[in-house]
């Protein structure tokens, strides 16, 4: 099955890549020599993530079916080195207390209203997270853009869309064979000076762009140029958009090991 999937993806990619790659390539400047694409991907990831981090954010979901945008506030703790993360939903009231715990490749979700914990199988990593246009994989980070992909530098975009006039490296991410990756491939724009991700285009296995993520409101935090707003837009769903605005970000805070436990997951006062 895996071989067949790969073969199909390869043929489609070969056809799709010809069309897809020609478009940006026409405007791309050649990259300066000696730039290591793997290192570039690593540095871009390091801007967003550290060995550990804590953040508090508001996620705003816009959809044609909603009379008013839905806002979900949450806190997130991540221990990247230990491959652990924890998320707690703070509001709206109906969802408050919902928790997510990731340990290695395992993901659990706690539903306080019925006091149950659900194990979410890896096959559901592409399911929407909390009704947003983000998917489970975006939030719980079961895959890593620097480790689970091979990287190829396509060139430099002098004025990328959403880059506010700052040039960006254009890097293609191809998933490694054995990686727990849910995308066919990713094309990323990375700021040439600060290595801040500017824009990520996600392709499915058939080689079609399915969503675009943009990063802006970049401010310096602990020596990193951290984008405080992340916007994701699915391309096949008209009028849908999800924005995450980060109010608080702390890099390398002391994190107690008790955070990343099922006991903590189920600890929520109504």
């Amino acid at each position, binding site marked *: 099955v895996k071989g067949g999937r790969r073969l199909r993806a390869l043929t489609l990619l070969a056809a799709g890549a010809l069309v897809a790659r020609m478009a940006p390539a026409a405007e791309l400047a050649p990259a300066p020599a000696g730039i290591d694409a793997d290192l570039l991907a690593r540095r871009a990831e390091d801007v967003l993530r550290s060995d550990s981090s804590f953040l508090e954010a508001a996620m705003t*979901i816009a*959809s044609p*079916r*909603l009379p008013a945008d*839905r806002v979900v506030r949450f806190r997130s703790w991540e221990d990247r080195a230990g491959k652990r993360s924890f998320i707690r939903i703070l509001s*709206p009231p*109906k*969802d408050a207390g*919902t928790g997510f715990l990731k340990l290695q490749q395992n993901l659990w*979700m706690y*539903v306080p*209203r*019925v006091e*149950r914990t*659900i*194990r*979410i*199988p890896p*096959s*559901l990593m592409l399911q*929407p997270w*909390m*009704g*947003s246009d983000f998917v489970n994989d975006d939030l719980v980070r079961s895959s890593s853009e620097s480790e689970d992909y091979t990287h190829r530098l396509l060139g430099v975009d002098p004025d990328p869309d959403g880059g506010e006039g700052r040039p960006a490296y254009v890097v293609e991410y191809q998933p490694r064979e054995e990686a727990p990756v849910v995308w066919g491939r990713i094309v990323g724009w990375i700021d040439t000076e600060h290595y801040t991700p500017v824009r990520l285009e996600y392709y499915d296995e058939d080689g079609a762009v399915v969503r675009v993520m943009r990063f802006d409101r970049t401010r310096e935090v602990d020596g990193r140029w951290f984008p405080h707003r992340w916007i994701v837009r699915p391309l096949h*769903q008209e009028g849908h958009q999800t924005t995450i605005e980060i109010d608080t970000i702390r890099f390398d805070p002391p994190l107690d090991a008790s955070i990343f436990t099922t006991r903590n997951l189920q600890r929520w006062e109504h």
Partner: protein
Amino acid sequence: MGLELRFSWRNVWRNPRRSALTIAATVFAVVLVLFFVAMAAGQHEQMIEDAVRLASGHVAISGAGYRESQTLEHYVTLDPRLEGAVESTPGVRGWAPRLVGFALASKDGATRGVAVLGVDPAREPQVSMLPERVTRGQFVSPELPHGIVLGAELARALGARLGDQVLLYSVAYSLEGAYDLFRVVGIVDVPDTELERRLALVSLADAQAFYVYGDRVSELAVLADDAGAAPALAHRLLVRLSALDGQRLEVRTWEQLMPGLAQLILLDDAGMYLLLVILVVVVAFGILNTILMSVLERRRELGVLLALGLRPASIFRIVYLESLLLAAIGLAIGMAIGIALVLWFQAHPVPLEGRAAQATELFGFQPLLVWKLKPWNPIGSALTILGVAVAAALYPAIRASRGRPVDALRSL
């Protein structure tokens, strides 16, 4: 004419053994044709019926765009006007509203992605085989709020038994988290293993509450009188529903919803017709052979008849009638046997066993061989055999009428 017919009739029995063999071949062919056509018709109807009774009926009405997206985004809003319009459309054998959603079903440590089917317990038996497929417990009912019926494979995977609680989690139409505990009230066994692995049935009211969906449903499943009536019914429904303003709806037939099944049937039919053509060609050569032999054998006799002043056209008719008589006798006997045989099998379906049964169940069909005699089936077979006889007798008849008395007499 009367004389010619008498001549022909006598000629048929001139060599009774040969004629009997030809008639037997025709009988055999007619019986086989009737039997196989009826078996294929029965099989196909059964396949379609099984499939539509597990899926969305012969005709499905859904919100415009639903077939592509298969999400809560596209829906049908139920209201009395719409229900009345569907109910009163001629040719609707039954209909039922359905809400189709995705959810995670979880019990203890096990979680599975499931297809949640919200059904109206009162209407569902009209269109689907699901209620009668409940092997343990019972179907969802208004008396059992928050009851859930699981596919047998799904129940096994979750380790869920009757009376156990299962948590469903999904995203509601309002994009809030949807979670609720349901109690397992029944286990359903469906021939489609893949479906059985992810099917979770709840009442429509529970599903609408769970997904915060109001009066909306995903589709209306409509059953037609039979598969062949689906396109016309779909058209009538479309016309009626277009007259109701307000909702943009799409109407699809089972052939559009299950193109794989439609193609499978087409392919099966093609294979069967190829077999029938071969059978019919064999019969044609049988008739040709018998008549030609009897013509060659009777060169002298025919020559004498010509010398006595019988016109070639009469000879032609005598020989031609002979072959038609042969075909007609074979046809009559074949029809009688064939129709009786098919009617008997129609009343007594043959259950499949062992590996054949497993294979059909794997494809989602009942392991049962059924026959269905359709009126056009014997008529078509009769016309085909007669047509073949008419064509096959042409050459011997022409040959007989062209003989010259002198040649015939010389060979005395």
